[in-house]
């Protein structure tokens, strides 16, 4: 995990008693809170609370993938989402990663198919995920349906 952080982020530790103004500046309500902020000042990850190691690493990978998406680097973002979902299939982040992976195909190549097939793919593995529900509107409607 440390090597992933060092390679993909510029890590900053903010202790509440040492930097209370920074807590107020970013509207942090609770600890621990983890924010990934890109070079334009946009928040690409907001994680509050503790998590098992696998989920925590998946969230870090999500932050890095979201940052690539924000830079419009569709291939890199798609690769990062795929790797996340394949490395951490049981994590909360996995169905969300597949959702965004499909979005990179649309954004990069105007390829609708991954979004159109996303709901059925997620339904099998993650039937109760909110990301499965979010994928439902992309399923093409049958004529007359």
């Amino acid at each position, binding site marked *: 995990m*440390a*090597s992933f*952080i*060092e390679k*993909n*982020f*510029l*890590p*900053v*530790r*903010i*202790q*509440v*008693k*040492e*930097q209370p103004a*920074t*807590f107020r*500046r*970013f509207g*942090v309500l609770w*600890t*621990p*809170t*983890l*924010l*990934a*902020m*890109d*070079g*334009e*000042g946009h928040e*690409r*990850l907001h994680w509050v609370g503790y998590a098992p190691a696998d989920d925590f690493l998946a969230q*870090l990978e999500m*932050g*890095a993938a979201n*940052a690539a998406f924000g*830079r419009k680097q569709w291939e890199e973002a798609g690769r990062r989402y795929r790797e996340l979902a394949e490395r951490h299939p049981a994590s909360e982040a996995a169905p969300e990663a597949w959702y965004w992976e499909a979005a990179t195909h649309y954004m990069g190549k105007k390829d609708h198919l991954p979004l159109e097939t996303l709901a059925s793919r997620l339904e099998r593995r993650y039937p109760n995920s909110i990301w499965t529900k979010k994928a439902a509107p992309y399923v093409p409607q049958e004529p007359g349906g």
Partner: protein
Amino acid sequence: MTIEWGTDVDAALSEARAASRPALLYFTAAPA
């Protein structure tokens, strides 16, 4: 491998622009 945490948010945000890497801000109540 241990993480070398910085403490200067603005320096990290500025470097994030140049490096195409996001700043990771870890807010904690735990003493250093």
